[in-house]
């Protein structure tokens, strides 16, 4: 069964290729939606298999590198957390696939093929990544995620900015990947196994400085992929890609892959205090800075991107506190409402051809299907009870305040406040509150069905907070501490208060927060540092070395032949063809010989 499931997921990209070949050769004018129909069907079958057989799936092992001293199989483990992650990935992916079929319907056949190919490769490798149970297979699919991200961000390749962002994302994540590779090799040398169980056992028994170093390397890989603080720059730029891609890759799945990896390695984190502290504080700093900066941003997708970063920070925090289930829970709930918001953003951007929140003001009526779902998404983003986003956030806050000291708690609270502010800004700027407009409610259903179905589905998932929490707890067979009503109220009331406050006093809040925003701007807009580094190291130094090689080294190499050529042209002059010349040289040489002979015989 495991084998069949993996095979099913594996073949999807190949079916797309096959379909394209058939399409090109034999069928001329076909509805291009067919590129999405087949993957959707196969993924649906896969999802069905997972949901029905979740309890009786084991593990699957595939021989990969088997070379006398190195024997690394690729293992896929179907335990509850891995299956849960795959379910989340498949659910969001299905929505995005349905949405995409409408979203890119204007493109030609070849671009359809490219889009669907990379999208399916992405989804398949993400599922494999979720199921992988060893570092090497994680690394392999981790790299595939980067590849697909690169091509999908650069999908609009007439836009120079999109290409720039794609290459930047690729280079930065690749840098992290190579750190990951080094860490993996150092760990492998010690543990001589790649499986997470063995690695966790090994790391927790021998937390020496080399393993610490290796863990830091892996952490750097995770931070680049999750776009945590010093590497935040690539994710907001990646929003230049198509919106469904942002919804799937840059909010729900790829960027949280690092969290999943940390979750799998979590039993050994606590043995490395430095790593644990870095996870905690980097998460905290990112969540704060990005939440503040999101309030300043005007671009709809950029706000969502920064809010994604901030939420990934929230996921990192519990991982640094040894309560990994909370981080995973936030990952799980975040992916639904964030991809929902992205899909709606894409819908708005397509409909009004506007990116800016200011220009989108009052465009969406509250009592339309999208309006209602957008409201749900924004409330969930702010963490208002009883929507999906609220549960995980409450647990994180309570857990954090119980453990940590005074200053970190204040930081966390500030970032929660700013989360409320920007989600409120998002909601009240876009939504127009009108009465009695139910007559138009169903009008949009006809031609926008393919947009509305995935949005509605994700909206329902974000609405049913209790249900999704129970599903999570039952699936993993764990339980969280109960939240008392007092705790609940003490968190919810301020959040709701701030949320509504922002509606009435938006301008004033802007003035108050201006200073903080300026500070965060100083920290967030560090792209210039990367540019300078790139320009100095790669461009200038590369140019210099190129010049050095072409001119200096080549010049030195050419010195001896040049010398020989000159010498020969000098000697050529001796052979001038005149008898008097030869005669005079002959006499001179004779005299020389006589003198030398005379000296040597001491005459």
């Amino acid at each position: 069964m495991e084998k069949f499931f993996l095979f099913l997921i594996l073949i999807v990209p190949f079916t797309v290729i096959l379909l394209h070949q058939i399409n090109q050769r034999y069928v001329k004018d076909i509805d291009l939606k067919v590129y999405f129909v087949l993957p959707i069907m196969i993924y649906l079958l896969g999802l069905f298999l997972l949901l029905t057989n979740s309890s009786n799936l084991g593990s699957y092992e595939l021989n990969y590198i088997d070379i006398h001293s190195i024997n690394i199989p690729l293992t896929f483990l179907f335990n509850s957390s891995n299956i849960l992650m795959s379910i989340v990935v498949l659910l969001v992916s299905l929505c995005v696939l349905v949405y995409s079929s409408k979203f890119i319907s204007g493109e030609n056949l070849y671009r359809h093929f490219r889009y669907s190919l990379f999208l399916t490769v992405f989804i398949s490798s993400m599922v494999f990544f979720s199921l992988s149970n060893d570092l090497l297979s994680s690394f392999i699919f981790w790299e595939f995620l980067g590849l697909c991200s690169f091509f999908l961000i650069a999908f609009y390749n007439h836009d120079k900015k999109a290409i720039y962002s794609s290459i930047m994302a690729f280079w930065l994540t690749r840098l992290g990947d190579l750190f990951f590779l080094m860490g993996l090799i150092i760990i492998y040398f010690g543990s001589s196994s790649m499986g997470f169980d063995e690695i966790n056992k090994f790391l927790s028994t021998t937390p020496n400085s080399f393993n610490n170093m290796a863990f830091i390397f892996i952490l750097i890989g995770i931070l680049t992929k999750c776009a945590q603080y010093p590497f935040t720059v690539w994710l907001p730029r990646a929003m230049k890609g198509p919106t469904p891609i942002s919804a799937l890759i840059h909010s729900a799945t790829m960027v949280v892959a690092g969290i999943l990896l940390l979750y799998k390695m979590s039993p050994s984190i606590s043995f490395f205090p430095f790593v644990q502290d870095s996870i905690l504080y980097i998460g905290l700093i990112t969540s704060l800075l990005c939440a503040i900066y999101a309030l300043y941003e005007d671009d709809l997708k950029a706000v969502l991107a920064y809010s994604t970063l901030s939420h990934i920070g929230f996921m990192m925090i519990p991982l640094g506190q040894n309560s990994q289930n909370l981080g995973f829970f936030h990952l799980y709930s975040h992916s639904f409402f964030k991809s929902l918001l992205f899909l709606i953003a894409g819908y708005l951007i397509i409909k009004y051809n506007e990116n800016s929140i200011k220009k989108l003001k009052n465009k969406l009526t509250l009592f339309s299907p999208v309006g209602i779902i957008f409201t749900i998404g924004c409330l969930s983003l702010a963490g208002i009870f009883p929507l999906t986003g609220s549960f995980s956030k409450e647990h994180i806050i309570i857990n954090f305040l119980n453990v940590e000291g005074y200053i970190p708690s204040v930081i966390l609270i500030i970032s929660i406040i700013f989360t409320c502010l920007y989600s409120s800004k998002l909601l009240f700027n876009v939504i127009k509150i009108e009465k009695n407009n139910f007559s138009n409610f169903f009008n949009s259903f006809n031609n926008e069905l393919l947009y509305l179905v995935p949005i509605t589905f994700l909206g329902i998932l974000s609405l049913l907070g209790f249900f999704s929490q129970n599903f999570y707890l039952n699936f993993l067979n764990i339980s969280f501490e109960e939240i008392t009503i007092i705790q609940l109220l003490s968190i919810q009331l301020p959040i709701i208060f701030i949320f509504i406050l922002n509606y009435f006093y938006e301008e004033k809040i802007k003035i108050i927060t201006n200073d903080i925003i300026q500070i965060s701007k100083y920290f967030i807009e560090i792209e210039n540092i990367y540019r300078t580094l790139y320009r100095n190291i790669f461009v200038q130094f590369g140019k210099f070395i190129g010049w050095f090689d072409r001119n200096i080294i080549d010049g030195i190499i050419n010195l001896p032949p040049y010398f020989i050529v000159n010498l020969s042209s000098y000697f050529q002059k001796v052979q001038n063809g005149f008898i008097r010349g030869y005669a005079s040289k002959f006499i001179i040489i004779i005299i020389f010989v006589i003198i030398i002979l005379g000296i040597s015989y001491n005459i």
Partner: protein
Amino acid sequence: MSVFFVLILPLISIITLCLNNNRNVIRYLPILISTLSLGIIFQFVFKNQLISESTFDSLYVNFYSLLPIFDVNMSFKIDRISVLLLFLSQITIITAFFSTLKIASNGQSLDESYTRLKQINIWISFISIGICGLIISSNLFVFFLFYEVAAVPIFLMISTWGYNLKREVSGPFQKILKHFNVGTREYGSYKITIYLFVASILIFFGLAILGISAGSFEIMNISNLDSYKINSNLVFWLLLIGFGTHSALWPFHTWAPDGHGTAPTAGSIIFAGILMKIGVIGFIKILIPLMNEITLDYSNLIITLASINIVYGAFTALRQDDLKYVAAYASLSHIGYIFLALMTNNKTGIDGAIFQIISHGLIICLLFFTVGVIYRIKGTRLISELNSMLDSSPILSSFFIFSAFASIGFPLTSGFVSEFMIINGIYKSFEPTNLGILLICIPTLGILLTTVYMFRAVKDCFITLANKIQQIIDMDKDEIIICFVLCFFILFIGLFPSIIQDILNESYKGLVMK
């Protein structure tokens, strides 16, 4: 025994091509013959059950003695490593033949271009004989003989079929460089010839001194001798510089970019795919097994030079404008990994080196082949002049991008396996020390830089869409076939590395220095 036909078969195509003027014969016969050689190699692999565990060690044949006093024999030995190298050389040669198919439509009258095609195919066949003989030689004399057979046709190939390039010079040596007309194909061909000739003189003296002092030219006999007889500093330095120049070891590398840049596509493919490996083959066949004590003494030097090669080549490739120069410096950088891995002195590293030889050969063949096709279609190889290829010629771009991914060591391609093993081997050989961590940073930095320069090219030439696409111009069928074959092997090695490993089996033992 039938495997020795790989030396004879190219002669058939040489003679036939000399006598025959049929166009299809000129075009397709060499390909057929090389494919036959490839088939013979596969047959050898299956007959001796190299893939499943068998006790096959090597096949030694002495055809006749030339000079019995010094053991100068016409002798050949095929072991497990040379089977793989033979396979690589045949693939390279086939790719080179495929790249010449399109020369025919280049300006001149049809008859003239067919005459030229005939000549180039004959020279490639000569190179094929030389390379195969060198790989399976078991005698220092035979080694040198076939080495010269392979080295001479290069001059003719570049000077007759090469390209002229523009190259601006500046700096203190401006006058000298201008004097030599840098960038022209004459310059390239003379440079490469003089370079390789000097290298071959050094190798000649090295081998002669080695053979005479050991009293035998037979490699097997020398390896049985006591080591003090042959471990001389002089021989080591002669051979190091000779082989190093051949493999473009820093600072004797400048022939490589100029040679690649001015050579025709077939020439570049052969250089990068197999000729640059002659030095490495020399290391594997002669320097490490015969003189392992002194090589071990100097291993730090070789590691340093290899590290410089990796980083320097990659940095130089960063801002090259010509795709061929990018590929040339890339291969320079990737050769560094091989030397680094050979010096690790443990099985993982040495196997990694052989993996890297094979994988780099395949990848660079694909890279140069696609660059050649780009030049044929677009008439330029400059990154600054190319754009929108992904939309205007999708299949070609897919192959180029595939090779870019393979060269950055993307998982499931052969590049990943070799890099993974090399880094593993380096770390293993330096134990868990800080030096080990530092040394694994070098190949990693190399991979990072490879990512930067390869994807700069991919971004600028392929993905950027500058203007509306009028029509799709793509590769021809025969070009697609050979690219597909190369991709297949790259992926095959990446997916099933254990098959290559089974062929190699225990052969790392001869390369571990004591």
